[in-house]
């Protein structure tokens, strides 16, 4: 009901207002306190820097986004696949879940030396890292969603002679969808970050590589330019998944 009341244009106006306020604060602080670039550059300087390095930055963003999106897709598949497997064969739960938790308890970057070692310094190591980070979030969200069903509804399906697969497909998946999609939304942002962080540890290109180089060259305007581009890319990714979510969850 409230969703219908607030027109999308108003929502958009408000988010723009929020962004404008934040940028104004930032710009004001940086300029007002005469902060040097190595502490915090002014937004205007960053935007100018961004524009002047636009080709490098956009190429790098494309590179990173490809890693993030492929890794994200892979992670979603793995996460959903594992959750579905557990849904179909409950005995797998006690095997998969502790292992997944243990693996996920270590920051993905902790594996970076091993992953870089095994998959090399190119794109594939980033994809693996992103997939690892994403798949756990998806697994947890999806499992929670699958478990959320009304037991009586499951019983009803069973009384129709529904197989586990049928119960999963017709009942558990629709129930799990909101949580799964929330997990997928949160993961978009993480996938870009993990790609960037891995790039910072060893890469041929991408935003993380640009950031790493810029830090070493003490070019903080470029660091922030790259961060801005990364944010924009993540936001677009986040928005896309959010859009899909609204399309799919029509009944709520």
């Amino acid at each position, binding site marked *: 009901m409230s969703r219908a009341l607030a027109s999308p244009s108003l929502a958009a106006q408000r988010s723009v207002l929020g962004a404008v306020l934040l940028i104004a604060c930032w710009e004001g602080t940086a300029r007002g306190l005469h902060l040097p670039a190595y502490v915090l550059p002014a937004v205007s300087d960053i935007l100018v820097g961004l524009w002047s390095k636009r080709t490098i930055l956009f190429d790098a963003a494309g590179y990173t986004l490809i890693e993030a999106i492929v890794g994200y897709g892979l992670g979603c598949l793995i996460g959903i696949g594992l959750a579905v497997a557990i849904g179909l064969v409950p005995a797998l739960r006690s095997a998969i879940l502790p292992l997944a938790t243990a693996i996920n308890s270590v920051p993905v970057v902790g594996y970076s030396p091993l992953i870089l070692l095994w998959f090399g310094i190119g794109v594939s190591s980033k994809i693996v890292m992103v997939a690892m980070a994403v798949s756990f979030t998806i697994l947890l969200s999806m499992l929670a969603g699958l478990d959320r069903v009304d*037991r009586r509804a499951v019983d009803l399906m069973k009384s129709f002679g529904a197989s586990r697969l049928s119960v999963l497909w017709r009942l558990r998946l629709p129930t799990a969808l909101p949580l799964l999609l929330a997990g997928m939304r949160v993961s978009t942002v993480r996938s870009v970050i993990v790609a960037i962080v891995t790039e910072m540890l060893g890469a041929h290109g991408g935003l993380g590589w640009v950031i790493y180089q810029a830090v070493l060259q003490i070019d903080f305007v470029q660091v922030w330019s790259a961060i801005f581009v990364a944010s924009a890319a993540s936001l677009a990714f986040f928005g896309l998944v959010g859009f899909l979510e609204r399309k799919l969850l029509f009944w*709520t």
Partner: protein
Amino acid sequence: MSSPAATSLSEAAAAARSITMPDSLRKLIRLMLGLAIAAVIWEGAVLLFGIRPYYLPRLSTILMAMAATPRAYIDGFLRTLAETLIGFASGGAFGVLMGIVFFRVRALREMIFPIFVVSQTIPVIAFGALVVLWFGNTLLAKAIIAFYLTFFPVTVNTLLGLETVDPKQVALMRSFGASNRQLLLRLQLPTALPQIFVALRLAASLSLVGAIVGEWFGDTTGLGVLLLQAMFTENVVAIWGALLAAALLGTGFYAVVAAVERRLVFWSAEQ
């Protein structure tokens, strides 16, 4: 009349517990067994296939290396644990709070939520250097990074959980003249609780990630420090040592959160 009912009820509860006790014991035994099997497979695979220690050392080698400098691991474990707990608690609380605020005040949500999203798109590593600049090598600095990683999923799930409340139940509460506060405490939060816990379980892992990554900015103790040192001295045995310690911490903490969840969200437990 009600007191015998109460006592017999509590007896029933006790009886129920004594039934579940061997169950949890069985679980523990199964867990131990699983770990033992995993250890044997690891050790055996390395020996059998002659895997080069550089790729995968023997488990016994790793454990022996850890036992050689136990203090480093114990101190690191405790320090990282403290950072994780602080980050988790503050991130969880803030996340739930912001979820509620965004749920309640649509205008704020539309203004600030996108900024939250943006904040999450900033790589921790870029942000970490700033935290050191502002807060130095303190426990607080790591906790802030853990916090930063934690609060967002909690906010998203809290918001989502609050929005799935059955409008008919809201209507019922309203017909009792419930205030917004009562609506929140008695209906919306309990309904959202299962969802919130999904995020908290995630946050348990993420806060550890935050603590460890936070320690990469010039800290002196912690599992993150051990990991970093091992990484850059290419000491694969030590890398695995730090990974195992972190996995132990993470799994333990996760298990605690999951246990709390089972207690609090008893009504939606399916299995």
